[in-house]
């Protein structure tokens, strides 16, 4: 009984820890006076108003940013899933020249401080005339998410018994068809994780987008939100309202795939 109480107590404590900051943003977004700070601990006060949310949709380019972000994230996810699933399959099933090097360099890419890559990114993209174009972002986003996704997919493929493909190959299936028809369908948890990570990599990325996109018509959500922030005069209310809305799609995504999330992230490592 005491143990149960303790468990409940600690879980409630952590629940507050995990949810309070979000409520705090909510409370800022509901304030009318555009102040980040107030001396009350209440979330909703008598002066609370949804004006900031209305302004966000009517008086700013929020919808445009949302569309741009959705488009970019969608394409990035598509590219990321395609590249990760094929290359991870090759790494998992075949032994070829450069495999070990590839595996290690995938991991090593995670070790270089990402901020120092901005300058070279800019130079490559401007040489390719991809500044101010979504293509530049597609390439960078899908590739930066790749190392993690490839490792993730590979760990999952490793757990799929080889007999499955061998049977198909004996029956005369081509290798591509075997991959496409047999392996991909059973890998859905890992595919979902890969999709999620590719999506996250582009959805809330700010630094690279800020360098690549210069035309306000092409702005993504993080860039748009940042424009409410000036060094000495921030539109806190709008910013907070936008921040909440940005988090919603990710949360919905998490909830809808949480079943896969749990199995996809771990199965590879457990059995592999």
């Amino acid at each position, binding site marked *: 009984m005491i143990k*149960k109480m303790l*468990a*409940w107590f*600690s*879980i409630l404590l952590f*629940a507050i*820890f*995990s949810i*309070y*900051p*979000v409520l*705090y943003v909510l409370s800022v977004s509901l304030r009318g006076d*555009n*102040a980040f*700070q*107030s*001396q009350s601990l209440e979330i909703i006060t008598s002066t609370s108003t949804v004006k900031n949310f209305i302004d966000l949709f009517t008086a700013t380019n929020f919808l445009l940013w949302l569309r*741009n972000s959705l488009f970019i994230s969608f394409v990035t996810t598509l590219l990321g899933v*395609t590249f990760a699933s*094929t*290359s991870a399959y090759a790494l998992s*099933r075949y032994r070829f020249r450069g495999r*070990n090097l*590839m595996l290690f*360099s995938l991991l*090593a*890419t995670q*070790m*270089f*401080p*990402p901020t120092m890559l901005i300058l*070279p990114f*800019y*130079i*490559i993209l401007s040489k390719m*005339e*991809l*500044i*101010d*174009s979504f293509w530049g972002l597609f390439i960078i986003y899908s590739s*930066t998410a*790749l190392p993690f996704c490839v490792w993730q997919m590979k760990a999952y493929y490793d757990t799929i018994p080889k007999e499955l493909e061998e049977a198909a190959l004996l029956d005369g299936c081509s290798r591509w068809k075997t*991959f496409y028809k047999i392996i991909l369908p059973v890998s859905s948890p890992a595919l979902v994780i890969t999709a999620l990570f590719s999506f996250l990599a582009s959805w*809330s990325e700010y630094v690279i987008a800020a*360098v690549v996109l*210069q*035309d*306000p018509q092409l702005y993504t959500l993080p860039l748009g939100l940042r424009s409410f*922030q000036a060094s*000495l*005069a*921030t539109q806190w209310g709008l910013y907070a309202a936008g921040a909440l809305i940005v988090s919603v799609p*990710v*949360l919905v995504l*998490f*909830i809808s795939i949480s079943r896969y*999330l*749990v*199995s996809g992230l771990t199965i590879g*490592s457990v059995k592999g």
Partner: protein
Amino acid sequence: MKTFIFPLLFSALLFGSFSEAKPIRIQLWHQMIYGHRVVLSDALRAFEKENPDIYIQETYRETEELRSSYQAAAMGGSGPELVFGPSDQIGPFAAMNIIRPLDEVLEPEYFNQFDPLATPIYKDKHYMIGGAVGNHLMLIYNKKLLTNPPKNSDELIALGKQHTLDTNGDGSIDRYGLVFNYTEPFFFAPFIPAFGEPFMTTDGKPQLNTQALRKTFEFILELRDKHKIIPKECDYETANALFKQGKAAMLINGDWSWGDYKDAKMDFGIARIPMIVSTQKWPSPLVGTAGYSLNANIKNPEHLAAAIKVLKYLTSDKVQMMFTERVGVLPSNLKIRETEAVKTNPLLQISSNIMEVGTPMPVVPEVRGVWDSLRIQYQKLLAGTLTPDQAAEGAQKLAEEQISAMNEVVQPDFGSTVIKVLSLFLVIALIWFTRNSLMTFVKGFQGPQKFVYYMMLPAFIGIFAVIIYPFFYNIAISFSNFSLLTFQNWSIVGFQHYVAALGDAKFYSLLLKTVIWTVVNVFFHVSIGIFLAVIINQVLPAKAFWRTLFIIPWAVPQYITALTWRGMFNQEYGPINQFLQQFLHMSPVQWLSQPFTAFAACIVTNVWLGFPFMMIVALGGLQSIPHTLYEAAYLDKANAWQRFRHITLPLLMPVMVPAALLGCIWTFNNLNIVWLVSNGGEPGDQTHILVSYVYKAAFNLYRYGYAAAVSVLIFLILVGWSLISLANHFRKEMK
């Protein structure tokens, strides 16, 4: 659907060639605050109507970001035609040769129509024309609380004490006499000359080890500790919020803030910052301009002509009047100063009166080194770790060091030849020794394994372009003298940056701090993750609900998380301190102004951000543990702890170890949280980890070569570490 096609069309346009008939696009990057942005946009649209052959694309960037993205763009040989910003960006931009002297394109008489403040001179040339002048600090007071502003420092203190009140008697102050962002040196700089001499000579030499700076330090400390008329901790947002809510009688702020207070329907007055009694001198706010500069990279003469036309338009009478009338700035055109609209505006009149005691903002690049070292020492003083004497002495020393580091042009030594020869040799050796492998690799595209190669190819190209190439580019920079003065013609110089970094005790203390940061974070991520997973898995109903609840922190983008937590740790207003006060009756903690607690605040934030991932991984791991094991343990009468210790934990290890290793790498290199929560290393540069130190060296102090060298060292440390800890994993993998 249209908007989905639009970006594609747009990029198609970029690939295609522009035809002659298309209007010329002029890009303008600016950092105007919201209210000013609206006026700018209206002005530009009016211009486009009159000049259909030109269209202007304005892009907002926050000040620091504007600086770094403009530098990056200019390095790539492009960038906007026009850039708008405060006058202190002229120095670095001109030193890098990325903005153009305006004397080359405008008549000498053209400059005469402006207030000299609006046409600052750097090395005998004009680089900017400001649309307005000011940007200066003043005393702003709430007329509801105060009828007459204090004239001197004694009155300021007396009035301050009178208005610092605990109205409800709960022991905490409800209204302050004076508030201002006293954590930033810019806001206390006006006092320095008032206590003696200025903090910088006109030719950009720091002058910080002075009696004036000591007295100023003491003055601020007295306001806080002796007279207690300012809050214990007060950044810009706090000061602004207190003043707007009527919880502060007086505020020191700049002319840019008026619009905000007008919008809040405040009845406010402005005045000079009160005279210092002991010296009988007025505090001297820095007076400057924010204006337009021309990109040095414009090659097409038509673009240049169009850009100059836009520049002239934006500084014209018409546009200046628009800004003056709508957002109340003081026009830079001397003729407009004499118009009724300006002369009858009481705010502008008092404002120009305040400006009479001001000091022109220095534009030399060195000023950044002065601000930075002043900030570091000042914040240490506020945190109580330095006396005014030590702080002033240290500030001078630090400023001189930073300036010489910034202006350093490393000369090539024998190391550069070694590197050139060595890299040539390495490339040849690499090709020679791998020639068989390379041949097999190339042949692979036709051989029986071609399926594998085509499966790998897209990912390979992507990773190569985006990660491998930039990586080698950085290695090249790390051997070069790429910095402020060699921005456009850097060359390989040798190992100096590595020698400097490895010979600096700071590198090792930062490394130690980064290791602590990583270990503490990952420890909490993993232990909280496992703890929650076990409880959710065994004890609670509605597993899915709890799982979702604890995923929330993961769903919030990092930059939002960081700013939110920064607000929560605020001394005056943050919910954390309010909770401590209201429920635990503790005194408020000055989280962000003490190095230890500020670092702890960064850690708490990052723990919040990172535990959900580990929890999900642990939940997955738990599901794969067979129930029969627990049943056997029950039969053996093992208690809960024993079951956890001998069954759960060992079986979770294979899942948690790889996740934790990856977590370590991510945490080690996580810039966002430390940078944003500590506001770039505050207080006094004591909350840096290696990556934030690199970021600062590169983007704030223009030491690209040095920063690249440190980042290569970070990489080597991580590779070495992971090779050791992953040795087992790899042995299995590489078979």
